[in-house]
């Protein structure tokens, strides 16, 4: 009997350098088409929303469909726009600073600014955020001083984390921003634990966790879905599918032929797939998920479809593995341009105001950078005291660490 030789299969993206990406794999749904279920929906009944794509802004910049019933007010829109512009400018300046060796490393959020900024504006003070490394927008929109961010990035003598963490791995308790690990996905089940604690105490606060498409492959991610479902934790589990995990296409993380949101259905978690470059959709869906959590209906998984417009980090060169002009062909566009178009149509923004805001943000970022650099950069070696290296390992410094500090002579 003849037997068929087995074939080994490895997913490949439709585009590689010199070969334009076929974005039909995204299976877009027209704006306004996805339904908006009640917040007490049964998780299994969100199947269509996990496979579809919730969009509010259409190509003409109009807000359409059932999710447009929860539009942000003018103030939220202005705050969101300002934070997105500021974040993008901050990122651009810090990339330059890295090239100037003022820091070892930087990660920009170019193209996906709307997601964390829009969600942040849909949450309440006291809600806890467990970010990954591309949610600097959470800090910018909460008015965490750019100076403090930069001192962390430059590892200088005002670095709030005393030079212990890689640049951008912030920790800001006063802004409800959990310490960033750098190990991928670990914060997901922790956010669920935080939400469980809030429920145990009969509190009203909820939590939100952030992970990229690549790190959904970590077992911690699956564990987070499990615990969130089992204990009906008041948590929002955010997956930013920006298509690329360094050089690895999202198909290798399990996104080929299925959506990442679909995995939530099998775990018993309400799951939605959303246009992450659509600020209005981000806000409306985040409000829905937050309301659901706050009313004891349990967790929501949201897959935000976006595109990592920049390199993974300053150590990465994406032209080696994807078409150089990929972002310009990405069908869901640029979140800032799309919100700008909508706000102008709504009559609360103008081209002049946009230019003026950009200029003001440039000036603010430049001023903060000047002030931060006065306290040193990685290049100047003006860091926090080396003696602090031995602190915070334990609450009280044990004898062996005191001796080791003496051995180092600091």
């Amino acid at each position: 009997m003849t037997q068929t030789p087995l074939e080994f299969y490895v997913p490949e993206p439709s585009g590689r350098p010199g070969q334009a990406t076929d974005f039909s794999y995204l299976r877009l749904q027209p704006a306004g088409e996805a339904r908006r279920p009640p917040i007490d929906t049964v998780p299994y009944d969100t199947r269509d929303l996990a496979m579809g794509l919730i969009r509010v802004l259409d190509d003409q910049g109009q807000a359409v469909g059932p999710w447009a019933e929860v539009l942000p007010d003018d103030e939220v829109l202005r705050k969101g726009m300002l934070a997105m512009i500021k974040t993008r400018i901050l990122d651009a300046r810090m990339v330059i600073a890295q090239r100037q060796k003022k820091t070892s490393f930087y990660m920009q959020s170019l193209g996906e600014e709307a997601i964390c900024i829009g969600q942040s504006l849909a949450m309440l003070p006291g809600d806890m955020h467990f970010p990954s490394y591309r949610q600097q927008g959470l800090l910018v929109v909460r008015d965490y001083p750019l100076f403090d961010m930069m001192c962390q990035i430059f590892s200088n003598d005002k670095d709030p984390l005393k030079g212990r963490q890689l640049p951008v791995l912030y920790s800001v308790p006063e802004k409800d921003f959990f310490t960033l690990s750098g190990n991928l996905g670990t914060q997901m089940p922790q956010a669920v634990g935080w939400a469980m604690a809030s429920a145990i105490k009969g509190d009203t606060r909820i939590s939100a966790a952030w992970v990229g498409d690549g790190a959904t492959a970590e077992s911690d991610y699956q564990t987070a879905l499990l615990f969130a479902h089992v204990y009906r934790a008041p948590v929002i589990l955010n997956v930013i599918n920006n298509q690329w995990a360094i050089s690895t296409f999202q198909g290798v993380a399990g996104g080929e032929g299925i959506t990442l949101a679909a995995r939530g259905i099998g775990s018993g978690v309400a799951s939605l797939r959303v246009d992450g470059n659509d600020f209005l959709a981000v806000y409306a869906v985040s409000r829905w998920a937050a309301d659901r959590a706050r009313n004891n209906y349990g967790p929501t998984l949201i897959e935000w479809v976006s595109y990592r417009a920049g390199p993974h980090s300053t150590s990465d060169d994406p032209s080696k593995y994807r078409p150089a002009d990929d972002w310009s062909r990405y069908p869901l566009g640029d979140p800032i341009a799309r919100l700008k178009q909508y706000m102008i149509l709504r009559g609360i923004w103008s081209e002049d105001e946009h230019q003026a805001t950009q200029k003001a943000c440039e000036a603010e970022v430049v001023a903060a950078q000047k002030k931060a650099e006065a306290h040193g950069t990685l290049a100047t070696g003006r860091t926090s005291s080396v003696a602090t290296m031995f602190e915070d390992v334990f609450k009280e410094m044990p004898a062996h660490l005191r001796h080791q500090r003496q051995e180092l002579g600091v």
Partner: protein
Amino acid sequence: MAEEKLRTKPMTMIQALRSAMDIMLERDDDIVVFGEDVGYFGGVFRCTEGLQAKYGVSRVFDTPISESGIVAAAIGMGAYGLRPVVEIQFADYFYPAADQIYSEAARLRYRSAGGFTAPLTIRMPCGGGIFGGQTHSQSPEALFTHCAGLRTVMPSNPYDAKGLLISSIECDDPVIFLEPKRLYNGPFDGHHDQPVVPWSKHPLGNVPEGYYHVPLDSASLYREGKDLTVLTYGTMVYVAEVAARDAGIEADIIDLRCLWPLDLDTITASVRKTGRCVVLHEATRTSGFGAELAALVQEHCFYHLEAPIERITGWDTPYPHSHEWAYFPGPKRVAEAFKRAFREA
């Protein structure tokens, strides 16, 4: 000492651990207890029996079989402000939680410059002697003592178990609390062919009913002697005791009980007195915690030593099933080591 005024009663190690959790659940609303089978049933070793009925399902509850999830959830709860006490059913099962323990719990305070902390206690039954094979017998303490930011504790008797667990729960650092399961019901001395003496017949089985501490970072001089110093912990404390008797040697038996950070003063005072040191543990030898102990002793007591430091440990093999008693460093092997260390010129 106020603690001595407390009414005492005989307890097994299981009862002492349960009493510690009961008292702490009563004293502090922020304490929660959870893990596999710990809720309604009360744990496979019954350490949490009755606690769910007394404190409710939101304070004491069952979890999915997911050690990484148990520890991760505890970290999130700790960051929220709770004080979770979680059980890993067997220390041999902690590996899926290793990333959450090493990279997260142990480093939260450090990486956030004190901004976030997770005061959690992770209880794990450990050690051999129950025919548990390679997945229910391991002694992984060195994997924790090697990690910066963790406290590692291993009591050897009911009195210490309760006092150390209360101290661990109140400690603001993450604590790995290892429970030698062969000692749960009595001070097993390695004579596996004889019935174990119950804790009710041992002075350290007499446990205060109320709230008291055994301080973290403290060792206990379990038996005093002039001939040599034994550095050990857990089940091997009682093996050392019987082996010293069999060898006719008067040994200072130091029960380290807090492995890291440890009580170096008690160790050095004893070795400087006896000039001879035997390091004894169940865990595999190479890169085991005994290597650290031997290094510390030579660093701090080299000019007092009369003989090479002996290391008696489990062999460098996975923990076997049918050959358990050939693997386990029993009284015979230990007594021979004591004699060698004592006779060495």
